[in-house]
């Protein structure tokens, strides 16, 4: 399963719910405002890091760039993809679940 999250974890609980309800082996893509959850030094960074133990986490590069966030500040283990990479992930995984 590819889980997509598009809201800031400082505004909504969608990332937390996704982390709670995504099974081991699934992938999570942070895009739109959710990309702010991919950087170090936030109060949710530890939770995101912990999830990397059994899930892959990706972030959409164009949304990071649009918000002035530097890729060098990403939490270790989070991978950057573009829209094509988003498409590839949704093909690789069995289905896509949006945490809207």
């Amino acid at each position: 399963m590819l889980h997509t999250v598009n809201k800031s974890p400082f505004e909504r609980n969608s990332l937390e719910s996704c982390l709670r309800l995504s099974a081991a082996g699934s992938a999570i893509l942070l895009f739109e405002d959710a990309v702010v959850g991919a950087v170090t030094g936030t109060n949710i960074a530890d939770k995101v890091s912990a999830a990397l133990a059994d899930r892959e986490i990706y972030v959409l590069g164009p949304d990071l760039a649009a918000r002035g966030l530097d890729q060098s500040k990403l939490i270790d283990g989070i991978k950057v993809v573009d829209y094509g990479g988003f498409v590839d992930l949704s093909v690789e995984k069995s289905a896509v679940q949006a945490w809207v």
Partner: protein
Amino acid sequence: MSEIKKFMYVNRKAPYGTVYALESLEVVLIGAAFDQDVSLAFVDDGVYQIMNGQNTTGIGMKNFSSTYKALGDYEVTKLYVEKESLEARGLTVDDLMELTWEDEDDDYEEKPSIRLVSSAELAEVMADQDVVLSF
């Protein structure tokens, strides 16, 4: 006849404040005609959609909560409710409507539609879906 897919409708928003709950229910009712393997999940504020005793007379909006009671007649019989979401909101399953379906293979016995599950159990059910419609 194409293969049957597992469809899950994930409800995470309270009713009335936004239209998502009502319009999700409209999709579920239409979708019931397609003979797929359907289930609903109530997570986060979605659990408020199936609260007992909803009364909308004071807000001038249609109370659509009784429609959830009709889901059994549409053969929508698997309603997963996440225990952790209820607990976080100070609720128990007794605060929810009694939702049932009649099992025609078991002498039309009335059976509960609500399946109270833990986060871990729900995560497994979700991981197994073919199509997830999120509202």
